[in-house]
């Protein structure tokens, strides 16, 4: 097989995959009678038209990056974390609690403490499915989903009860359960005037570097990857697979928790119902789309931030509901996992290669 053919083959499969994804999305768009081309244009390019909107895309990319980093650590260690949504909610609660309890502490103390508290709450919420899988073989796919629902109820309970903004309980409230505005001492700075872009972006990049070092430059990371790539071989090699599985889930949860902490410290500055808004699920798509590698996750997070902002605009500009972004994310997962398998199938490549050979150089007469 020639190198040229291999590249051609891979590129054509990726192009086919993109076309399949766009076609599947187009079917839904046709069903609601929308202008397909225009909808895609709006989603992909409209948010890039003004610098204000670009910062909005970046703001969404921040939690997506952090969550996806965590999910990729878990995925690489052999456990699929679908519970980032719940872990993020727990992280927000942890952060809010610290901010409400110690509003007078100076910023250099309070901010790290609040973020750490968020990380710990998220880690705890990730630890539960990890330990359940390690000790009792409970499928993490199901336990993390269930923990999302449970966390959502915790979140509502705290926001409607102990953490409810006192202003909301009187008649003049906004009607949305939320905490009071948190102390300025945990606010992240917005460093471009007139936009909401906050310093959390640097923190996200910092975390990406940490994850890269952890997974590829340390013995711990190597063991985690071994546990994920082949649990049996890892066990044989003296690596405690279950231990690393629990650790990976805790790290994954901690990242989702931190994403929540950064989100309220940078954007909302208070805990509000519905803040997690599907970031946990989008994080899975970002992690997969980014090839489970920090260097891929950062651009992938930007791309999905773009989709989220773009989908918000489609309602106004082309009459397509914003839920369309969920449709696209679902499609993208289905297409990515399929494409990965097709690309990794040597049998198919061999078959195509033989066809290709027949096409390019017709067989000479074989001597009998």
């Amino acid at each position, binding site marked *: 097989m020639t190198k040229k053919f291999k590249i051609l083959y891979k590129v054509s499969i990726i192009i086919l995959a993109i076309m399949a994804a766009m076609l599947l999305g187009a079917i839904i768009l046709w069903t609601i009678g929308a202008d397909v081309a225009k909808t895609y244009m709006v989603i992909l390019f409209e948010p890039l038209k003004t610098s204000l909107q670009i910062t909005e895309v970046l703001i969404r990319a921040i939690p997506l990056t952090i969550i996806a980093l965590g999910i990729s650590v878990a995925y690489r260690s052999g456990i699929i974390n679908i519970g980032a949504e719940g872990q993020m909610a727990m992280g927000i609660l942890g952060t809010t609690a610290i901010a409400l309890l110690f509003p007078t502490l100076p910023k250099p103390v309070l901010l790290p403490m609040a973020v750490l508290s968020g990380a710990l709450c998220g880690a705890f919420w990730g630890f539960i499915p990890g330990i359940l899988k390690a000790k009792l073989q409970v499928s993490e796919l199901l336990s993390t989903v269930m923990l999302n629902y449970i966390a959502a109820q915790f979140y509502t309970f705290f926001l409607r009860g102990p953490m409810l903004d006192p202003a909301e309980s009187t008649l003049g409230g906004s009607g949305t359960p939320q905490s009071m505005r948190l102390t300025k001492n945990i606010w992240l700075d917005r460093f471009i005037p007139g936009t909401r872009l906050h310093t959390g972006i640097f923190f996200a990049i910092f975390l990406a570097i940490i994850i890269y070092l952890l997974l590829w430059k340390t*013995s711990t990371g190597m063991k985690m990857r071994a546990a994920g790539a*082949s649990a*049996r*071989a*890892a066990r*044989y090699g*003296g690596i*405690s697979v279950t231990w690393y599985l629990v650790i990976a889930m805790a790290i994954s949860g901690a990242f989702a928790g931190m994403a929540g902490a950064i989100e309220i410290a940078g954007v909302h500055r208070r805990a509000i119902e519905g803040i997690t808004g599907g970031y946990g699920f989008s994080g899975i798509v970002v992690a997969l789309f980014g090839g489970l590698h920090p260097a891929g996750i950062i651009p992938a997070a930007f791309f999905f931030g773009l989709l989220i902002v773009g989908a918000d605009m489609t309602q106004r500009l082309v009459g397509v509901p914003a839920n369309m972004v969920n449709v696209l994310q679902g499609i993208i997962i289905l297409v990515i996992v399929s494409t990965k398998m097709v690309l990794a199938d040597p049998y198919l*490549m*061999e078959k195509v290669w033989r066809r290709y050979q027949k096409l390019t150089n017709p067989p000479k007469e074989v001597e009998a």
Partner: protein
Amino acid sequence: MEVTTKKITSLRVEHITKRFPGVLASDDISLSIGEGEILALVGENGAGKTTLMNILMGLYQPDEGRILINGEEVRFRSPNDAFAAGLGMVHQQYMLVPNMTVLENIALGYKQAWSPFKLDLGKVRERIEEISKKYGLFVDPDAFIWQLSVGEQQRVELVKTLCLGAKFLILDEPTSALTPQETDELIVLLKRMTSELSIIFISHKLQEVKDLSNTITILRHGSVVFQGNTTDHSPSDIAALMTGHEVELPHNDEPPCEGAIALNIKNLHVKSDRGFLALNNLNLSIRSGEIVGLAGVSGNGQRELAEAINGLRKVEGGEILFYGEDLANKSPHHVIEAGMGYIPEERNTEGIVPSFSIKENLILKDASHPEFSKHTFLRNKEIETNATDLRVKFDIRSPNIAVAAGSLSGGNIQKVILAREISRKPKFLIAVYPIRGLDLGAAEFIHRQLLEKRKEGIGILLVSEELDEILDLSDRIAVIFKGQIQKILDRKDATRRSLGILMAGVKDDQEI
């Protein structure tokens, strides 16, 4: 499609070629079998025997060539077509559904008993009885497959194939999991069957080939290297043709060893995956500087023993004393640190992480060792030097040390494992089927390495079902049967025959 009732008087395969990625599995193969004949298809592992048979059964489509039955060309698009033409195959790995009964397993292929909303199991039962009587093959139709022994499962496979109307049998290494006595019974049965059927019989056990077949075809690297009548050739001729050169593996000619006891296993009890006792009061001790061969039909507790010693399986009772320390129920990490080296049975999935590079696999057990990491950060330079050295020393054939270990050939994967285990300077080595499926060159290399380690004073437990391998290398030979050591013999006292009888579970102190 209706199953034909016509006898198969001749089957011919002409110029069959089949390619897999990077492998020419069948290369222009032709052969022919007449009525009532038994053809032995012989060759080493990977010679292409099974691929050829899967083509005959319609499981694979050949890239070139054709198949003729009674002189007429046939095309098999699926196994259904092959059944309809009267072919039937007993695969090496039995094709039975464990959580279904014998009856249901046969019903799965017996389409005469199917109607859209009902499965006529009574009809299947009648068919089984008919076949059982005709060939003297009795099975319990209501037993679940998982309850049956390997020998019984094979009988079910035979009955199944015959129930589906086979007039031509293909048997893929039918004796590989049988005891010598079960093997003898099978051979008698098959000979009797030739009054009704023709048979293709795949094997690499030359004695059976001599006993059973009329003609012989030898494959090597996917092509036919020899065809002829069985009676005209001796087993050693056939062996030479099979491997391409005279079989000459290194021998252990050293005097018996007098070293201290390294590994002492006392009253070991271990459960299998299915929950029954796979090791039932096993006792065995091995000195340093000696090779003990563990002979036995696979499935008699070999895997469980190796796993229990290495901390990979729970020990229910007994002790594993390693230089005085009890290793029972210690973690794999603990056992590794105690100086145990282990070449596992499943080299592709257990011995290496297939997606990891060679250099990563070579430090799989030592990633946290100060030699390769400092403050948890990996020391890349040392890791590369280690891999480069070992690659040369162990003759690992690969483009470089960064390629995925899973992309290597079986022999080279085994060398990676061996390199890692030996370079860790173990005090003891457990090698499970170390040369199974390898080409002779790699096998010879691995045997030489094991003998060298023995000379250096390392104790070795060699698990194998190849009696030649055991007889070549061992100082003493322990025979395992149903989770117990049947007997331990010195090499000079052991013969193929005496070992075969012990492996079958006959414990006879009389001279045989």
